[in-house]
Protein backbone atom coordinates (compact mmCIF):
# COMPACT_ATOMS: atom_id res chain seq x y z
CA UNK A 1 0.00 0.00 0.00
CA UNK A 2 1.26 3.38 -1.04
CA UNK A 3 0.09 5.15 2.10
CA UNK A 4 2.11 2.78 4.29
CA UNK A 5 5.17 3.53 2.21
CA UNK A 6 4.79 7.26 2.90
CA UNK A 7 4.19 6.68 6.57
CA UNK A 8 7.17 4.35 6.99
CA UNK A 9 9.43 6.71 5.11
CA UNK A 10 8.32 9.64 7.24
CA UNK A 11 8.84 7.80 10.50
CA UNK A 12 12.21 6.53 9.24
CA UNK A 13 13.37 10.04 8.43
CA UNK A 14 12.15 11.43 11.75
CA UNK A 15 13.69 8.68 13.85
CA UNK A 16 17.02 9.04 12.03
CA UNK A 17 17.05 12.75 12.87
CA UNK A 18 16.15 12.10 16.52
CA UNK A 19 18.83 9.41 16.92
CA UNK A 20 21.42 11.67 15.36
CA UNK A 21 20.47 14.44 17.72
CA UNK A 22 20.55 12.24 20.79
CA UNK A 23 23.91 10.73 19.86
CA UNK A 24 25.46 14.12 19.33
CA UNK A 25 25.31 15.16 22.93
CA UNK A 26 27.35 18.31 22.46
CA UNK A 27 24.77 19.54 20.01
CA UNK A 28 21.99 19.01 22.51
CA UNK A 29 23.84 20.84 25.25
CA UNK A 30 24.88 23.67 22.94
CA UNK A 31 21.32 24.03 21.78
CA UNK A 32 20.20 24.49 25.37
CA UNK A 33 23.04 26.60 26.68
CA UNK A 34 22.59 29.33 24.07
CA UNK A 35 19.08 30.42 25.04
CA UNK A 36 19.80 29.83 28.72
CA UNK A 37 22.70 32.28 28.62
CA UNK A 38 20.36 34.84 27.10
CA UNK A 39 17.81 34.16 29.78
CA UNK A 40 20.07 34.03 32.82
CA UNK A 41 22.61 36.67 31.84
CA UNK A 42 21.28 39.00 29.19
CA UNK A 43 17.70 39.20 30.37
CA UNK A 44 18.66 39.41 34.02
CA UNK A 45 21.00 42.30 33.21
CA UNK A 46 18.38 44.16 31.24
CA UNK A 47 15.60 43.58 33.71
CA UNK A 48 16.04 46.93 35.37
CA UNK A 49 16.60 49.00 32.25
CA UNK A 50 13.66 47.75 30.24
CA UNK A 51 10.20 48.19 31.58
CA UNK A 52 7.55 46.27 29.75
CA UNK A 53 4.10 47.77 29.94
CA UNK A 54 1.01 45.63 29.91
CA UNK A 55 0.42 44.52 26.33
CA UNK A 56 -1.46 41.49 25.11
CA UNK A 57 -1.16 38.60 25.74
CA UNK A 58 0.18 39.66 29.16
CA UNK A 59 -2.34 40.73 31.74
CA UNK A 60 0.01 42.06 34.37
CA UNK A 61 3.38 43.76 34.46
CA UNK A 62 5.96 41.22 33.54
CA UNK A 63 9.65 40.77 34.01
CA UNK A 64 11.90 41.10 31.01
CA UNK A 65 12.79 37.40 31.30
CA UNK A 66 9.15 36.54 30.78
CA UNK A 67 9.01 38.78 27.76
CA UNK A 68 11.97 37.25 25.94
CA UNK A 69 11.14 33.60 26.63
CA UNK A 70 9.02 33.21 23.46
CA UNK A 71 11.75 34.99 21.50
CA UNK A 72 14.27 32.50 22.82
CA UNK A 73 12.01 29.62 21.80
CA UNK A 74 12.03 31.18 18.35
CA UNK A 75 15.80 31.46 18.51
CA UNK A 76 16.11 27.76 19.30
CA UNK A 77 14.09 26.99 16.20
CA UNK A 78 15.92 29.53 14.08
CA UNK A 79 19.28 28.00 14.98
CA UNK A 80 17.91 24.54 14.50
CA UNK A 81 16.45 25.38 11.10
CA UNK A 82 19.72 26.88 9.92
CA UNK A 83 21.75 24.09 11.41
CA UNK A 84 19.72 21.44 9.69
CA UNK A 85 20.03 23.37 6.45
CA UNK A 86 23.74 23.44 6.99
CA UNK A 87 23.76 19.74 7.68
CA UNK A 88 21.81 19.31 4.49
CA UNK A 89 24.50 21.02 2.49
CA UNK A 90 27.02 18.92 4.30
CA UNK A 91 24.83 15.87 3.79
CA UNK A 92 24.62 16.55 0.13
CA UNK A 93 28.34 16.71 -0.13
CA UNK A 94 28.60 13.58 1.90
CA UNK A 95 26.04 12.04 -0.35
CA UNK A 96 23.38 11.13 2.17
CA UNK A 97 21.08 13.73 0.65
CA UNK A 98 21.55 11.82 -2.57
CA UNK A 99 20.51 8.64 -0.82
CA UNK A 100 17.36 10.42 0.25
CA UNK A 101 16.79 11.78 -3.25
CA UNK A 102 16.97 8.37 -4.93
CA UNK A 103 14.25 7.00 -2.68
CA UNK A 104 11.20 6.14 -4.80
CA UNK A 105 9.03 8.92 -3.38
CA UNK A 106 8.18 12.40 -4.67
CA UNK A 107 10.87 14.91 -3.88
CA UNK A 108 8.44 17.38 -2.35
CA UNK A 109 7.39 14.71 0.12
CA UNK A 110 10.98 13.81 0.99
CA UNK A 111 11.90 17.43 1.64
CA UNK A 112 8.76 17.91 3.69
CA UNK A 113 9.58 14.81 5.73
CA UNK A 114 13.07 16.13 6.34
CA UNK A 115 11.50 19.35 7.53
CA UNK A 116 9.10 17.58 9.87
CA UNK A 117 12.06 15.70 11.32
CA UNK A 118 14.04 18.89 11.93
CA UNK A 119 11.02 20.58 13.49
CA UNK A 120 10.45 17.62 15.78
CA UNK A 121 14.01 17.92 17.08
CA UNK A 122 13.62 21.67 17.59
CA UNK A 123 10.46 21.09 19.62
CA UNK A 124 12.29 18.64 21.88
CA UNK A 125 14.83 21.40 22.51
CA UNK A 126 12.14 23.99 23.05
CA UNK A 127 10.39 21.93 25.73
CA UNK A 128 13.68 21.16 27.47
CA UNK A 129 14.28 24.91 27.59
CA UNK A 130 10.76 25.61 28.87
CA UNK A 131 11.35 23.04 31.60
CA UNK A 132 14.46 24.81 32.84
CA UNK A 133 12.78 28.21 32.52
CA UNK A 134 9.93 26.88 34.64
CA UNK A 135 12.34 26.00 37.43
CA UNK A 136 13.79 29.52 37.12
CA UNK A 137 10.36 30.93 37.76
CA UNK A 138 9.01 31.61 34.30
CA UNK A 139 5.75 29.79 34.58
CA UNK A 140 3.21 30.32 31.82
CA UNK A 141 -0.23 28.77 32.37
CA UNK A 142 -0.21 24.99 32.03
CA UNK A 143 -2.61 24.93 29.11
CA UNK A 144 -0.29 27.41 27.40
CA UNK A 145 2.40 24.75 27.42
CA UNK A 146 -0.01 22.61 25.46
CA UNK A 147 -1.14 25.34 23.06
CA UNK A 148 2.41 26.30 22.28
CA UNK A 149 2.94 22.92 20.64
CA UNK A 150 1.05 23.61 17.38
CA UNK A 151 2.59 27.08 17.30
CA UNK A 152 6.05 25.56 17.56
CA UNK A 153 5.18 23.12 14.80
CA UNK A 154 4.29 25.90 12.40
CA UNK A 155 7.14 28.23 13.36
CA UNK A 156 9.59 25.34 13.21
CA UNK A 157 8.36 24.35 9.78
CA UNK A 158 8.59 27.92 8.55
CA UNK A 159 12.13 28.44 9.79
CA UNK A 160 13.13 24.99 8.59
CA UNK A 161 11.75 25.74 5.13
CA UNK A 162 13.80 28.92 5.10
CA UNK A 163 16.88 26.88 5.91
CA UNK A 164 15.97 24.37 3.24
CA UNK A 165 15.58 27.17 0.74
CA UNK A 166 18.97 28.58 1.66
CA UNK A 167 20.56 25.16 1.36
CA UNK A 168 19.23 24.72 -2.16
CA UNK A 169 20.53 28.10 -3.30
CA UNK A 170 23.75 28.56 -1.42
CA UNK A 171 26.50 26.48 -2.88
CA UNK A 172 28.61 26.08 0.15
CA UNK A 173 27.92 27.25 3.64
CA UNK A 174 31.56 26.90 4.52
CA UNK A 175 31.06 27.75 8.12
CA UNK A 176 28.29 28.68 10.41
CA UNK A 177 29.64 32.21 10.85
CA UNK A 178 28.32 33.33 7.48
CA UNK A 179 24.83 32.12 8.28
CA UNK A 180 25.03 33.71 11.74
CA UNK A 181 26.00 37.09 10.32
CA UNK A 182 23.70 37.22 7.37
CA UNK A 183 20.65 35.29 8.47
CA UNK A 184 20.39 34.49 12.16
CA UNK A 185 21.56 37.77 13.70
CA UNK A 186 19.57 40.09 11.43
CA UNK A 187 16.46 37.99 11.78
CA UNK A 188 16.76 37.73 15.52
CA UNK A 189 17.70 41.33 16.34
CA UNK A 190 15.32 42.93 13.89
CA UNK A 191 12.32 41.23 15.40
CA UNK A 192 10.03 41.34 18.37
CA UNK A 193 12.04 38.65 20.13
CA UNK A 194 13.92 41.10 22.36
CA UNK A 195 11.69 44.18 22.44
CA UNK A 196 8.06 44.83 21.68
CA UNK A 197 7.13 46.62 18.48
CA UNK A 198 5.92 49.82 20.13
CA UNK A 199 9.22 50.12 21.94
CA UNK A 200 11.10 49.75 18.65
CA UNK A 201 8.91 52.39 17.06
CA UNK A 202 9.92 54.89 19.72
CA UNK A 203 13.53 54.66 18.70
CA UNK A 204 13.62 53.85 15.01
CA UNK A 205 10.97 53.99 12.35
CA UNK A 206 12.76 51.81 9.78
CA UNK A 207 13.61 49.18 12.35
CA UNK A 208 9.98 49.14 13.35
CA UNK A 209 9.03 48.61 9.73
CA UNK A 210 11.54 45.77 9.24
CA UNK A 211 10.59 44.08 12.51
CA UNK A 212 6.94 44.24 11.62
CA UNK A 213 7.41 42.39 8.34
CA UNK A 214 10.14 40.04 9.50
CA UNK A 215 8.56 36.57 9.41
CA UNK A 216 10.58 35.67 12.48
CA UNK A 217 8.69 38.36 14.45
CA UNK A 218 5.41 36.81 13.47
CA UNK A 219 6.62 33.35 14.44
CA UNK A 220 7.66 34.71 17.84
CA UNK A 221 4.32 36.46 18.32
CA UNK A 222 2.50 33.27 17.39
CA UNK A 223 4.50 31.42 20.05
CA UNK A 224 4.06 34.24 22.59
CA UNK A 225 0.27 34.30 22.32
CA UNK A 226 -0.01 30.50 22.25
CA UNK A 227 2.05 30.28 25.41
CA UNK A 228 -0.73 32.23 27.13
CA UNK A 229 -3.51 30.21 25.57
CA UNK A 230 -4.35 32.81 22.92
CA UNK A 231 -4.38 32.76 19.17
CA UNK A 232 -2.80 35.62 17.25
CA UNK A 233 -4.55 35.22 13.91
CA UNK A 234 -2.44 37.69 12.02
CA UNK A 235 0.75 35.95 13.15
CA UNK A 236 -0.76 32.59 12.26
CA UNK A 237 -1.63 33.61 8.71
CA UNK A 238 1.65 35.45 8.21
CA UNK A 239 3.76 32.54 9.45
CA UNK A 240 1.72 30.05 7.46
CA UNK A 241 2.07 32.08 4.28
CA UNK A 242 5.81 32.49 4.80
CA UNK A 243 6.09 28.72 5.25
CA UNK A 244 4.23 27.99 2.02
CA UNK A 245 6.34 30.45 0.03
CA UNK A 246 9.67 29.24 1.43
CA UNK A 247 8.67 25.62 0.93
CA UNK A 248 7.58 26.07 -2.69
CA UNK A 249 10.81 27.86 -3.50
CA UNK A 250 12.83 25.14 -1.78
CA UNK A 251 11.06 22.41 -3.76
CA UNK A 252 11.80 24.36 -6.89
CA UNK A 253 15.42 24.60 -5.83
CA UNK A 254 15.65 20.84 -5.46
CA UNK A 255 13.81 20.08 -8.69
CA UNK A 256 16.20 18.26 -11.01
CA UNK A 257 15.29 20.15 -14.15
CA UNK A 258 14.59 23.63 -12.92
CA UNK A 259 16.67 23.82 -9.83
CA UNK A 260 20.03 24.95 -8.74
CA UNK A 261 21.47 21.45 -8.36
CA UNK A 262 22.52 21.64 -11.99
CA UNK A 263 24.79 24.57 -11.53
CA UNK A 264 26.37 23.11 -8.47
CA UNK A 265 26.85 19.44 -8.79
CA UNK A 266 29.37 19.41 -11.58
CA UNK A 267 32.08 16.85 -11.86
Amino acid at each position, binding site marked *: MRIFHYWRALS*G*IVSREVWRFLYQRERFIAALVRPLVWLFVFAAGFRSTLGIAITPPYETYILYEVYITPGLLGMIQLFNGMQSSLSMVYDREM*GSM*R*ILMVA*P*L*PRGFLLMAKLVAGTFVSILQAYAFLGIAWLYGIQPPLDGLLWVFPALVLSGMMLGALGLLLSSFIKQLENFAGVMNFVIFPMFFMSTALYPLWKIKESSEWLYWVAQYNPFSQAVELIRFALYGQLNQYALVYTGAAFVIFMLLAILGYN*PSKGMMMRKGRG
Partner: protein
Amino acid sequence: MGRCVKTMKKPALEIEQLSFAYGKKKALDHVNLTIQPAECCILLGPNGAGKSTLFALITRLYDCREGRIALCGFDIKRESLKALATLGVVFQQTTLDPDLTVLQNLRYHAALHGMSRKQADQRIQQELERFEMYHRRKEKVRQLNGGHKRRVEIARALLHKPQLLLLDEPTVGLDMSSRQSIVAHVHALVKDDKIAVLWATHLVDEIYPDDKLVILHQGKIKANGVVSDVLQKTGTETIREAFSHLTEGMAS
Protein backbone atom coordinates in the same frame (compact mmCIF):
# COMPACT_ATOMS: atom_id res chain seq x y z
CA MET B 1 9.89 -3.14 -2.93
CA GLY B 2 10.32 -6.18 -5.10
CA ARG B 3 11.16 -6.88 -8.63
CA CYS B 4 9.17 -5.54 -11.50
CA VAL B 5 8.00 -8.93 -12.63
CA LYS B 6 6.12 -7.80 -15.68
CA THR B 7 9.23 -6.15 -16.99
CA MET B 8 11.63 -8.97 -16.20
CA LYS B 9 12.50 -9.35 -19.84
CA LYS B 10 13.20 -5.69 -20.37
CA PRO B 11 16.76 -4.50 -20.13
CA ALA B 12 17.73 -3.37 -16.63
CA LEU B 13 19.12 -0.17 -18.08
CA GLU B 14 18.53 1.44 -21.44
CA ILE B 15 20.21 4.65 -22.42
CA GLU B 16 19.48 6.12 -25.83
CA GLN B 17 21.17 9.07 -27.46
CA LEU B 18 21.95 10.69 -24.14
CA SER B 19 23.73 14.03 -24.29
CA PHE B 20 24.40 16.45 -21.50
CA ALA B 21 26.30 19.70 -21.24
CA TYR B 22 27.32 22.04 -18.46
CA GLY B 23 26.88 25.34 -20.25
CA LYS B 24 28.93 24.93 -23.39
CA LYS B 25 31.07 22.11 -22.13
CA LYS B 26 29.77 18.78 -23.32
CA ALA B 27 29.94 16.12 -20.63
CA LEU B 28 28.13 13.36 -22.49
CA ASP B 29 27.77 13.09 -26.25
CA HIS B 30 25.16 10.76 -27.74
CA VAL B 31 25.69 7.91 -25.32
CA ASN B 32 23.92 4.62 -26.00
CA LEU B 33 24.11 1.81 -23.50
CA THR B 34 22.02 -1.23 -22.66
CA ILE B 35 22.51 -3.55 -19.73
CA GLN B 36 20.58 -6.82 -19.52
CA PRO B 37 19.66 -8.62 -16.32
CA ALA B 38 22.56 -10.70 -14.94
CA GLU B 39 25.05 -8.59 -16.83
CA CYS B 40 28.01 -6.95 -15.15
CA CYS B 41 28.96 -3.84 -17.03
CA ILE B 42 32.21 -2.13 -16.17
CA LEU B 43 32.35 1.53 -17.08
CA LEU B 44 35.95 2.45 -17.49
CA GLY B 45 37.06 6.00 -18.03
CA PRO B 46 39.70 8.47 -16.93
CA ASN B 47 38.72 11.21 -14.49
CA GLY B 48 36.43 13.71 -16.15
CA ALA B 49 35.27 11.24 -18.78
CA GLY B 50 31.65 11.81 -17.83
CA LYS B 51 31.10 8.88 -15.46
CA SER B 52 29.80 10.99 -12.60
CA THR B 53 27.52 12.94 -14.91
CA LEU B 54 26.11 9.71 -16.26
CA PHE B 55 25.44 8.50 -12.71
CA ALA B 56 23.86 11.81 -11.75
CA LEU B 57 21.50 11.47 -14.71
CA ILE B 58 20.59 7.85 -13.98
CA THR B 59 19.89 8.66 -10.31
CA ARG B 60 17.93 11.72 -11.39
CA LEU B 61 20.04 14.25 -9.60
CA TYR B 62 19.85 16.10 -12.91
CA ASP B 63 17.20 15.74 -15.55
CA CYS B 64 18.20 14.54 -18.96
CA ARG B 65 17.08 16.92 -21.67
CA GLU B 66 18.47 15.14 -24.69
CA GLY B 67 18.04 11.42 -24.93
CA ARG B 68 16.28 8.90 -22.79
CA ILE B 69 17.00 6.70 -19.80
CA ALA B 70 14.81 3.77 -18.80
CA LEU B 71 15.21 1.40 -15.87
CA CYS B 72 13.42 -1.96 -16.30
CA GLY B 73 11.39 -0.31 -19.03
CA PHE B 74 10.31 2.61 -16.82
CA ASP B 75 11.22 5.99 -18.21
CA ILE B 76 13.21 7.85 -15.58
CA LYS B 77 11.41 11.09 -16.31
CA ARG B 78 7.83 9.98 -16.78
CA GLU B 79 7.73 7.09 -14.33
CA SER B 80 10.50 8.19 -12.03
CA LEU B 81 9.21 6.57 -8.86
CA LYS B 82 8.77 3.15 -10.45
CA ALA B 83 12.15 3.50 -12.10
CA LEU B 84 13.90 4.51 -8.86
CA ALA B 85 12.32 1.56 -7.04
CA THR B 86 14.29 -0.81 -9.28
CA LEU B 87 17.58 0.91 -8.59
CA GLY B 88 20.21 0.35 -5.91
CA VAL B 89 23.08 2.82 -5.66
CA VAL B 90 26.46 2.92 -3.99
CA PHE B 91 27.84 6.41 -4.30
CA GLN B 92 31.48 7.27 -4.48
CA GLN B 93 31.61 9.06 -1.14
CA THR B 94 30.43 7.15 1.87
CA THR B 95 26.82 7.97 2.65
CA LEU B 96 26.36 6.17 5.94
CA ASP B 97 25.70 8.10 9.11
CA PRO B 98 28.85 7.62 11.19
CA ASP B 99 27.05 8.34 14.48
CA LEU B 100 24.38 5.71 13.95
CA THR B 101 24.73 1.95 14.12
CA VAL B 102 24.84 -0.29 11.07
CA LEU B 103 21.34 -1.49 11.86
CA GLN B 104 19.94 2.04 12.23
CA ASN B 105 21.47 3.06 8.92
CA LEU B 106 19.96 0.08 7.14
CA ARG B 107 16.56 0.46 8.77
CA TYR B 108 16.48 4.05 7.59
CA HIS B 109 17.05 2.96 4.02
CA ALA B 110 14.45 0.20 4.31
CA ALA B 111 11.92 2.75 5.58
CA LEU B 112 12.59 4.98 2.59
CA HIS B 113 11.68 2.04 0.41
CA GLY B 114 8.51 1.42 2.35
CA MET B 115 9.43 -1.84 4.04
CA SER B 116 7.79 -2.82 7.31
CA ARG B 117 10.06 -3.32 10.30
CA LYS B 118 9.69 -7.10 10.06
CA GLN B 119 10.46 -7.22 6.36
CA ALA B 120 13.34 -4.82 6.87
CA ASP B 121 14.96 -6.80 9.66
CA GLN B 122 14.66 -9.98 7.66
CA ARG B 123 16.26 -8.45 4.57
CA ILE B 124 18.95 -6.75 6.66
CA GLN B 125 19.90 -10.08 8.19
CA GLN B 126 20.04 -11.77 4.77
CA GLU B 127 22.19 -9.10 3.19
CA LEU B 128 24.50 -8.55 6.13
CA GLU B 129 25.07 -12.28 6.46
CA ARG B 130 25.99 -12.46 2.81
CA PHE B 131 28.69 -9.87 3.45
CA GLU B 132 29.69 -11.41 6.80
CA MET B 133 28.72 -8.28 8.66
CA TYR B 134 25.66 -9.39 10.62
CA HIS B 135 27.53 -9.79 13.90
CA ARG B 136 28.60 -6.16 13.68
CA ARG B 137 25.14 -4.70 13.14
CA LYS B 138 25.00 -3.00 16.53
CA GLU B 139 28.29 -1.17 16.11
CA LYS B 140 28.42 2.45 15.13
CA VAL B 141 29.51 2.98 11.55
CA ARG B 142 32.36 5.17 12.78
CA GLN B 143 34.00 2.08 14.24
CA LEU B 144 34.13 0.20 10.92
CA ASN B 145 37.06 0.32 8.53
CA GLY B 146 36.70 1.51 4.95
CA GLY B 147 36.19 -1.92 3.46
CA HIS B 148 33.52 -2.86 5.98
CA LYS B 149 31.70 0.43 5.44
CA ARG B 150 31.59 -0.36 1.75
CA ARG B 151 30.16 -3.79 2.39
CA VAL B 152 27.42 -2.25 4.51
CA GLU B 153 26.68 0.21 1.73
CA ILE B 154 26.39 -2.52 -0.86
CA ALA B 155 24.17 -4.51 1.50
CA ARG B 156 22.06 -1.40 1.94
CA ALA B 157 21.74 -0.85 -1.81
CA LEU B 158 20.43 -4.42 -2.13
CA LEU B 159 17.83 -4.32 0.64
CA HIS B 160 14.91 -3.51 -1.63
CA LYS B 161 15.99 -6.12 -4.19
CA PRO B 162 16.87 -3.77 -7.01
CA GLN B 163 17.19 -4.94 -10.60
CA LEU B 164 20.10 -2.69 -11.30
CA LEU B 165 22.97 -1.92 -8.97
CA LEU B 166 24.99 1.20 -9.66
CA LEU B 167 28.45 1.43 -8.12
CA ASP B 168 30.42 4.63 -8.51
CA GLU B 169 34.07 3.80 -7.92
CA PRO B 170 33.28 1.88 -4.75
CA THR B 171 36.79 0.67 -4.13
CA VAL B 172 38.58 4.01 -4.10
CA GLY B 173 40.79 4.30 -1.05
CA LEU B 174 40.49 0.65 -0.02
CA ASP B 175 43.37 -1.74 0.51
CA MET B 176 44.05 -4.60 -1.86
CA SER B 177 42.27 -7.36 0.03
CA SER B 178 39.13 -5.29 0.70
CA ARG B 179 39.04 -4.35 -2.95
CA GLN B 180 39.34 -7.92 -4.11
CA SER B 181 36.65 -9.11 -1.77
CA ILE B 182 34.22 -6.42 -2.91
CA VAL B 183 34.92 -7.16 -6.58
CA ALA B 184 34.30 -10.85 -5.94
CA HIS B 185 31.13 -10.18 -3.95
CA VAL B 186 29.60 -8.05 -6.67
CA HIS B 187 30.42 -10.57 -9.37
CA ALA B 188 28.82 -13.28 -7.25
CA LEU B 189 25.68 -11.15 -7.00
CA VAL B 190 25.41 -10.98 -10.76
CA LYS B 191 25.78 -14.72 -11.02
CA ASP B 192 23.56 -15.79 -8.12
CA ASP B 193 20.84 -13.15 -8.11
CA LYS B 194 20.78 -12.29 -11.81
CA ILE B 195 21.09 -8.67 -10.89
CA ALA B 196 22.45 -6.18 -13.43
CA VAL B 197 25.45 -4.11 -12.39
CA LEU B 198 26.92 -0.89 -13.70
CA TRP B 199 30.29 -0.39 -12.10
CA ALA B 200 32.29 2.76 -12.73
CA THR B 201 35.99 2.51 -12.12
CA HIS B 202 39.36 3.47 -13.46
CA LEU B 203 41.09 0.37 -12.16
CA VAL B 204 41.46 -2.32 -14.83
CA ASP B 205 42.20 -5.13 -12.38
CA GLU B 206 38.58 -5.08 -11.20
CA ILE B 207 37.33 -6.48 -14.49
CA TYR B 208 36.51 -10.14 -15.01
CA PRO B 209 36.93 -11.74 -18.46
CA ASP B 210 33.22 -12.23 -19.15
CA ASP B 211 32.19 -8.75 -18.01
CA LYS B 212 30.82 -6.27 -20.43
CA LEU B 213 33.30 -3.47 -20.89
CA VAL B 214 32.34 0.09 -21.76
CA ILE B 215 35.06 2.67 -22.22
CA LEU B 216 33.99 6.27 -21.85
CA HIS B 217 36.28 9.06 -22.91
CA GLN B 218 35.49 12.76 -23.25
CA GLY B 219 31.79 12.04 -23.01
CA LYS B 220 31.75 9.48 -25.81
CA ILE B 221 31.61 5.71 -25.73
CA LYS B 222 34.76 4.36 -27.32
CA ALA B 223 34.20 0.67 -26.78
CA ASN B 224 31.22 -1.42 -25.79
CA GLY B 225 31.28 -5.21 -25.62
CA VAL B 226 32.52 -8.30 -23.83
CA VAL B 227 36.14 -7.94 -22.80
CA SER B 228 37.44 -10.35 -25.47
CA ASP B 229 35.55 -8.50 -28.21
CA VAL B 230 36.98 -5.18 -27.15
CA LEU B 231 40.48 -6.66 -27.16
CA GLN B 232 39.92 -8.14 -30.57
CA LYS B 233 38.58 -4.93 -32.05
CA THR B 234 41.39 -2.84 -30.72
CA GLY B 235 43.99 -5.47 -31.56
CA THR B 236 45.37 -5.42 -28.05
CA GLU B 237 46.15 -8.10 -25.53
CA THR B 238 45.25 -6.53 -22.21
CA ILE B 239 42.53 -4.22 -21.05
CA ARG B 240 45.17 -1.74 -20.01
CA GLU B 241 46.50 -1.60 -23.55
CA ALA B 242 43.04 -1.36 -25.04
CA PHE B 243 42.23 1.43 -22.64
CA SER B 244 45.30 3.49 -23.46
CA HIS B 245 44.84 2.78 -27.14
CA LEU B 246 41.31 4.16 -27.02
CA THR B 247 41.83 7.08 -24.69
CA GLU B 248 45.35 8.35 -25.29
CA GLY B 249 45.40 7.43 -28.98
CA MET B 250 42.23 9.35 -29.66
CA ALA B 251 43.24 12.35 -27.65
CA SER B 252 46.46 12.89 -29.56
